[in-house]
């Protein structure tokens, strides 16, 4: 018994756990630095959970995209457009179901377009989604007329962002359940295996009978739908939609996924790691606010922290 446990301990690749060290380190640091500012208080922790929910959910989709060796830069504006479409339809029809379906459909259509362009026309995903970002953002500004759209549907705002179940924010429930589903999907199902194979070696995957283009389309689709869901959750939490939603999330989400151990070259991905990555980004953000930095300073810090932490993660992996 003992020997097998020892063997198992040896098999664990400590280097791959770097994300957990960073996670614990960051919490420890802020617990000490911000002890008297209530960093560890229940309400602040719940706040962090709420603030990071959307980026965590987007990070799940992005994990799949990066695992295939592709990238998506358009999802920030998908967040905005889906939130605007959802709230507009909700306000004009009063039907939550219809609003949600339309909001998610926005993501699905954009993701499908991204995927088709990448997989069928062989255009690099970087370029496709960069262009798509412009298109979708333009649509979001146009449709909303640069105005915020308020939401007054209590059922909608409760389910999609503002509600609490006992002491637990509903956003936390969304995050945890989607993370579990995403983790199982990537690590335990044939689909996830094919995603990782596609990123690990595209040609080998093709020779193994994997329909590489379809896998690529599916991950672009998945990511866009997750971004659309994040957009819906934003409008529920903020009781409204605006074209600026999601604009700061692109950098944070991609950084979170890479810090979480997913390889930008594909073939390696971890949904749980991405969640931790997103939490780290969220905690840093929260800490910076509690320390009293201005928004401008926060942006500068966030950029620096992303570069430093990604550099650390990459360096660990190269060893």
């Amino acid at each position: 018994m003992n020997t097998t446990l020892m063997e198992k301990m040896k098999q664990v690749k400590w280097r791959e756990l770097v994300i957990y060290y960073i996670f614990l380190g960051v919490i420890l640091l802020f617990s000490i630095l911000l002890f008297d500012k209530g960093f560890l208080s229940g309400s602040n922790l719940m706040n962090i959970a709420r603030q990071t929910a959307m980026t965590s959910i987007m990070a799940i989709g992005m994990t799949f995209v990066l695992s295939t060796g592709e990238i998506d830069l358009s999802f920030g504006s998908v967040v905005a457009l889906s939130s605007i479409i959802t709230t507009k339809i909700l306000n004009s029809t009063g039907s939550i179901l219809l609003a949600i379906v339309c909001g998610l459909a926005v993501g699905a259509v954009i993701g499908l377009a991204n995927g088709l362009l990448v997989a069928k026309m062989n255009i690099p995903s970087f370029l496709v989604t960069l262009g798509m970002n412009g298109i979708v953002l333009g649509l979001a500004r146009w449709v909303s007329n640069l105005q915020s759209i308020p939401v007054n549907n209590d059922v909608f705002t409760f389910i999609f962002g503002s509600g609490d179940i006992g002491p637990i924010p509903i956003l936390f429930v969304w995050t945890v359940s989607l993370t579990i589903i995403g983790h199982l999907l990537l690590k335990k199902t044939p689909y996830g295996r094919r995603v990782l194979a596609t990123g690990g070696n595209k040609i080998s995957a093709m020779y193994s009978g994997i329909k590489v283009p379809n896998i690529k389309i599916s991950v672009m689709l998945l990511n866009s739908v997750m971004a659309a869901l994040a957009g819906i959750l934003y409008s529920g939490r903020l009781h409204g939609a605006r074209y600026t939603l999601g604009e700061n999330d692109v950098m944070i989400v991609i950084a979170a996924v890479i810090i979480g151990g997913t390889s930008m070259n594909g073939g390696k991905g971890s949904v749980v790691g991405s969640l931790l990555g997103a939490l780290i980004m969220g905690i840093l953000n929260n800490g910076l606010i509690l320390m009293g930095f201005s928004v401008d300073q926060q942006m500068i810090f966030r950029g620096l922290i992303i570069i430093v932490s990604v550099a650390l993660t990459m360096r660990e992996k190269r060893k």
Partner: protein
Amino acid sequence: MNEYAIEAKGIEIGFNGVKILHDVDFTVRKGEVHALVGPNGAGKSTLVKILNGVYHKDAGTISLYGKPYEYTSPEEALQAGIAMVFQDLSLIPTMTVAQNIFLKSIPFRFGPFIDDKASAKHALELLERIGVNAEIHPDDLVSDLSIGQQQLVEISKALSNDPKILILDEPTASLSTSEIERLFSVINTLKQKGITIIYITHYLQDIFKICDGVTMIRDGRVLFSKSTKEITLDQLVAAMTNDQGGKISWEHVQGLRETKPLLEAKNITTHSISNVSLAVYPGEIVGIAGLLGSGRTELLRALFGIDPIVKGEILLDGKPIILHSTSDAIEHGIALVPENRREQGLVLDYSVSENLIMPIVHRIKRLLFVDERKKDTIVKQYIKQLGVKTQGPGQVVRYLSGGNQQKIVVAKFLASDSRVLLLDDPTFGVDLQAKHEIMKIIHAYAAKGNAVVMVSSEFNELADYCDSIYVMKRGKLSECLSGSMTEDNLLYMVQ
């Protein structure tokens, strides 16, 4: 009862208007190991890719076990009983052995989820079937395995589909001698289990060890198809090189070592070699004999400024030089032809001429722009000199055969006017004829008073072509062995 496993008749195929196979008949008896040989670019890979369903033939018929088949994809070929082990390994390096073996169908499930335990168990059975379960474990990560082990995993993966016919495309190309023996015993095991094997190779001696029949293809046509009992190695070599080949070696110039060395390394140590000294004289080709992992590649890396030198010094023309980077080395006239031509030596999607002028582009520019006319002259001269088989300077390098790609890599560095050329396994995976042509080029280069250091895993080549030989073993270099070495001497010494 039909005696043939495969009967392909009148196979024709062309790409972009260039005909690759002309009316090819190819038959393989049930249960035999059948060699498919021919120079690079002859159409061997194209033929098996048709059998395997990757390419679609323009004309002809294929029968398997007497039944005509029309399949249009590798999956359909698999269902018909043909599995292929590819030359460029088709494994996913980031996955485990078991995950790779069952990647295609992922047959073991637990509801919607993969049953990794059952996969591992069945993977172990397949590894046992070819007798390699002692050294390869289903949970091993493929990137941690040696190339030889990966090859065996690849075979297990092909066997997971229970094929009747197995195609092996140059399986020994990157294996060490002991790994090759290993592979041969696996092939014999498969043969005993009644599996018919098509075996593509450049190593003609091997054919007599394991094959029953052999088909020779040249220029897209079948030259002959015989039992290995009816043919000798010399006949095969002659057919392969179009009767012009045979052994080419040349008079070794005497007294080379009496002048001043052009390049000298004195007790250099890096993270993977220790206390290495060697000297190369003008006009000399120096061979480094060593097995994979002996430090032979690392020695070249040190001389080329890639691996930092911890101790010792490098002298050029008797003057110490310090190499911080590859551009320092190139500045001093040292060039390296890397081991892996496809990844390190060429930009595959660039044209022949763009690849050739890459290192000299600064010399042929006029004002700010590349002098196109000068470029054309240089490129055409090299293509002619090297006998590169290409449709022209504009052809994309990816579609050239291995031998021709290697010629371009070598030419690229000759064009750079370097005085010291470091070659890492320059004839790896190249057919005999191209090999001779490459060695001729290198010899002519040395004869102009330049120096060559050449690493090779083919010791007969070192013995034939090199003026002096050093033996590399576990990061250390032997004394210089001049004069007449034989392949057997060297094989013995590197162990």
